[in-house]
């Protein structure tokens, strides 16, 4: 049973490992080796780097990031709602589904008011 169901997965894993090994071994074996100090710099998308990555962040970054993720995920619920809205309207349930979204957004707005009142978005 396991071979039957997981066989393709095992082949894929073997292929992935084989590919990685192949690339590592052959580039090391065939490729020319020329030393250049720039080669060993931290890669920064072509821009030369300016300090260590292990710096300290202000803890407020994390708070803002968490709040952003929460509200961002809510948008995921709004998009399918808007896609099927017209179908519900055809069934005569337009007001109902509008009310559902109003309740959902109402709860979100309450959370937003809470965040603002608690000063989570204030930077200073």
């Amino acid at each position, binding site marked *: 049973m396991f071979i039957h169901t997981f066989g393709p997965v095992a082949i894929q894993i073997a292929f992935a490992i084989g590919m990685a090994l192949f690339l590592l071994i052959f580039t090391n074996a065939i490729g020319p080796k020329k030393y250049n100090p720039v080669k060993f710099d931290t890669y920064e998308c072509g821009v030369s780097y300016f300090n260590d990555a292990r710096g300290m962040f202000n803890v407020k970054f994390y708070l803002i990031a968490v709040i952003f993720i929460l509200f961002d995920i809510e948008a995921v619920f709004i998009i399918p709602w808007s*896609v099927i809205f*017209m*179908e*519900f309207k*055809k*069934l005569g*349930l337009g007001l*109902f589904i509008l009310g559902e979204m109003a309740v959902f957004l109402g*709860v979100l707005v*309450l959370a937003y*008011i*809470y965040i603002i*009142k*608690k000063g989570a978005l204030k930077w200073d």
Partner: protein
Amino acid sequence: MQQVMIPAISDSSAQQIIKILGDTNIFYTLPQIIISIGALVTMMIAAISREERGQVINYITSVFFLFAGLVSSVWLASLPKGDAFSGMVSSDLFSGILNIIYSGSALLIILVAHSYFRNRGRYIQELFPLIQFAVVGMMFMTMANNLIIVFLGLEILSVSLYVLAGIDNMDTRSNEAAVKYFLMGAFSSAFLLYGIALVYGGTGSTGLREIAAYINNKSIWQNIYIPAGIILMLIGFGFKVSMVPFHMWTPDVYQGAPLMITAFMSTAPKAAALSAFAKILISMNLEPGSSIMLTNLIGVLAVVTMTVGNLMALNQNDIKRIMAFSSIAHVGYLLIAVCIMNREALAALIFYFCVYTIMNIGFFSLLSLLARDEDRNLTLEGIQGLGKSRPLLGLFLLIFLFSLSGIPPTAGFAAKFFIFNTAIENKFYLLAILGILNSAISAYYYLRIILYAFIREPESGSIDQWSQIKLNAACFVVIFVTAAAVLEIGIVPGYIIDLGKKAIQFL
């Protein structure tokens, strides 16, 4: 042109939508709706108002909403069984009784927590919405008919509890408790989710009824994913209810969290997690012969849990730590009932939840009167002289500790008797004997608290700290009501047992 882009809705799917809306039956989730509204209202009050005045308004509001939730739970429990949200959630007497336990315990906790936090000098309004959200999560866990809803409820509950453990952000121990609890809890959620995924992989559904129809009294070994998934779910729930060997977080978290939060964490959430797990096991329709391995496993875990809990409690000095190990031991007794895995055992489970919640909340409410200095005085030496100085409080202490150790005529005795009796009736003799031996061990550390409170004298020359305690009205009412209930259930346990037996017929 735009209309063409949208796939035209077929008649059958239109009928399906209307059928789903007709099956919603939203009133079966009335307690959750009421308490959610309460949580949102108190959250808004917490955002707008400041310090002490806000705390008082929040206190009154949340007591009102929790009481309304309690009344609606009673009303729902009196209704016949029904499904809501197309069978994702179902309401019956079983979930009704547990909903009453959840909302009732939250109500008692809030009544005491208000004065407790005032004495501690902290005004934390977020306490009230978080407790109410936790209650909503627990209610969904018990009413769930689908593993996804169980997980959803568990997460609503857990996230609230993580924050509640660290709610006193000035106390370093409280913060430490929150971080430890969060890390362990997140870890255990992953186990639970993996277990759900495996059961889904094995049976093709997350609905409890569909799973039962798939297993259909056949061996669970027909498909390796089902037992593997059940065991992973057992581990996930085991973390939440602090089953040994997944109990390591319990003493630190219970000691670090503010006292009334510990009282909340040690009662209703355990009832929620265990009842959800027992409901999953029983509604899966496992064939008795094939689940012997599972029965043995849970049985061994029950014995290990109560033995480790009781033995570790013997040498503790901090009362909150003693209560942490005591709650581990009580989970061991409860696991005996889960292990028997039939409906009478579920009745014993419901009865034990009732009794354990009442006596634990009563005992913690009593401690909340004595606590000061961020609970650091709640040690065995710290309560010396209580019995002499305040005989009434000493009497209540006696009642609750007798009940916790299971001495008649208290409710704790009736609850343990019922569980061990069910074990013997179902021929689990060894479990019953080990359980009884364990309650004998547990008497040592409960009675040691009494020994310190009544017999040991405080050092001569020290001032009598207990004479300054002011009895807060709400707190005293809670202590009085729970003590009276402990005695009353201990003397006449019949009607709650009957209610429990009636509840499981409808499951």
